[in-house]
């Protein structure tokens, strides 16, 4: 960070200013003039929080995608199908057992197993042939989408959060001022806060594993120079399998989260595949911090756009992507290959 400040002093000042303004907008009670210009503060805060929690969901899905691509150069365009499948399975499990939490480990295991099969049967046969991998996974996603349509039909499902998580919670953030001068505080769905915290914990845990353990060392070395790692006698196939299973399992868990936040229906698979594509393009391929940053930016852009310019909200996302591509084709935190 200090390095960045030293190299780009002007940009750091601009970033710091923007961050300060946003923090002030979130924390301070708004003066009346601002409320007239930008609407109620509660709406703005809701957009920000929805953006951050949506970013957490995108992060869960995009990390798996970016890890698999970064380490193995495997292009898994069926990643969105794994997301949707995880969601449907999570719905079935939590409906059948009544335990929302139980769905997470079970779905993670099932989808990770599917990922292992995929890696072993499909990707190992066409190592290094990115185009063919793309085509095959597109074909797989078409087939999987139709099978899921066959089983679960065209209607949309919502996974109900358990009793102790449903309902709003009060956050220590001022959302407005009453006429009597009392502050009212922001109320926000509890389950989203919990999932946001879980995603942050997950992200930190992944950072620790990647940067502080031997497995993480192997993975990072594999991302940077695969040939060298293979040459030094590491059983890289096992690392591949583990990472692929982990990434696929994350997508499956993302499905449960997505089904709890929003809903599951046919077409969500491509939506989340595209979201993770855009996130990793913006953040930088193969970089976990990049995925976090990209997910945050895209989630915020989507939700703020939805509130303040509903017609163009999708376009914002892609304008961001185009701008990043135009100035930094390798992504914000990506390394030049």
């Amino acid at each position, binding site marked *: 960070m200090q390095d960045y400040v030293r190299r780009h002093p002007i940009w750091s000042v601009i970033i710091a200013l923007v961050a300060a303004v946003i923090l002030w907008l979130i924390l301070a009670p708004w003066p009346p003039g601002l409320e007239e210009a930008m609407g109620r503060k509660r709406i703005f805060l809701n957009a920000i929080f929805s953006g951050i929690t949506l970013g957490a969901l995108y992060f869960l899905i995009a990390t798996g995608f970016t890890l698999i691509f970064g380490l193995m150069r495997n292009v898994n365009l069926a990643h969105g199908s794994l997301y949707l499948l995880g969601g449907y399975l999570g719905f079935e499990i939590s409906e059948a057992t009544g335990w929302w939490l139980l769905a997470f480990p079970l779905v993670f295991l099932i989808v990770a197993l599917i990922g292992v099969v995929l890696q072993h049967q499909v990707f190992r046969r066409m190592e290094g*042939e990115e185009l063919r991998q793309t*085509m095959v996974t597109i*074909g797989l996603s*078409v*087939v999987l989408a139709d099978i899921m349509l066959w089983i679960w039909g065209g209607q949309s499902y919502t996974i109900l959060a358990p009793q102790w998580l449903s309902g709003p919670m009060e956050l220590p953030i001022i959302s407005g001022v009453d006429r009597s001068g009392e502050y009212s505080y922001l109320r926000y769905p509890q389950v989203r806060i919990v999932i946001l915290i879980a995603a942050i914990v997950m992200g930190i845990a992944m950072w620790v594993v990647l940067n502080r353990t031997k497995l993480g060392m192997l993975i990072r070395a594999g991302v940077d120079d695969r040939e060298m790692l293979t040459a030094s006698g590491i059983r890289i196939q096992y690392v591949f399998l583990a990472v692929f299973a982990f990434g696929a399992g994350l997508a499956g868990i993302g499905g449960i989260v997505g089904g709890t936040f929003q809903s599951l229906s046919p077409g969500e698979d491509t939506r989340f595949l*595209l979201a993770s594509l855009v996130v990793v393009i913006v953040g930088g*391929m193969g970089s976990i911090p990049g995925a976090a940053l990209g997910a945050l930016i895209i989630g915020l852009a989507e939700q703020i756009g939805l509130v303040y310019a509903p017609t163009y909200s999708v376009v914002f996302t892609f304008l961001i992507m185009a701008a990043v591509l135009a100035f930094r084709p390798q992504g914000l935190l990506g390394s030049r290959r």
Partner: protein
Amino acid sequence: MAVIEHAARGGLAPAWFERIPPAWWVVGFVMLLMPAFANSFWLFQVFGWTFILGIIALSLMFLAGYGGMVSLVQMTVAGVGGYMVAILGPSGVETISLGLAWWLYIPLAIIIAAVFGTVVGALAVRTEGIYTIMITLAIAAAFFYFARQNYVIFNGYTGFNLILPPQLFGIDWRQPVPFYYLSLGCAVLAYAAVVYVSRSPFGLALQGVRDNPRRMAALGFNVTAHRIAAYAFASVLASIGGILLVWQNAQISPGTVGIPAVIDILVIAVVGGLRRPIGPFIGALIYILLRTFTPDILSSFGLSTERFKLLIGLGFLAVVFFSPDGVLGLWDRWRARMRRRDPLTGREAE
């Protein structure tokens, strides 16, 4: 290549029509005389669709086969062309459509779509391989969502209806026989254009760029400019296909350019084969035949008629899994096996 071989063998070079293989003459005559023995369903629904999707897939084949750039945005470019015809020309939505004359809105639609495709191409050529696919897919999705949400220009979810081709020379071009000839003519022109361009200096340079961009750059070719120009040419083809598509449907809506439609074009081009410009048309014919007749086949086996996508997907999966060159690749391999030569004597083996 053929020209050089003939010259090397000596003797008179045969006239251009002598070099066309007999099979092509047969196909040509059958295509021209089709209305004499096919009913209007075959003309309009089967062959009309084949030519239209074939043209759009051809523009993808040109980029992928000669340029080495797999672009998923070609259906979107076609959609832009179609939308422009609906917006600039007459349509059922009179509040938006401008109702310009046909000689104005058709070229304008092609130009606007080509500019759109070229701008996307300029963005996409900054990246390579899989990144190009991702970025073009993302742009295609952006256009789909934008068209669905924008009511001022694109009329949102409903789109446009009653978009009919102009009544030129007193002919209703949407009747099956005239439309068949119109789409056939466009398909032949597009095919000929791709063949011509691929043998022109530009096309040869483009293939050089595909095979070794660094060497071509070292030779003084502007790699980026060649790639963007390829996008521009492919966009013109795609926009022609898009205009025909709108006339065929008489309507356009965001679903026309949705992700499934984008993937379909890739499926068509890959199943047909990306090596030669005839591939996309073969792929389109297979796709259309499957789409038209699988419901009957599936229901005769007692299955739900809705599993057409599953069949297409499995077929596509099988093709890309076993033959990356598509049906044409299978055909080539089969022919090569038929006349395998003995490597020592040079004679044909059993």
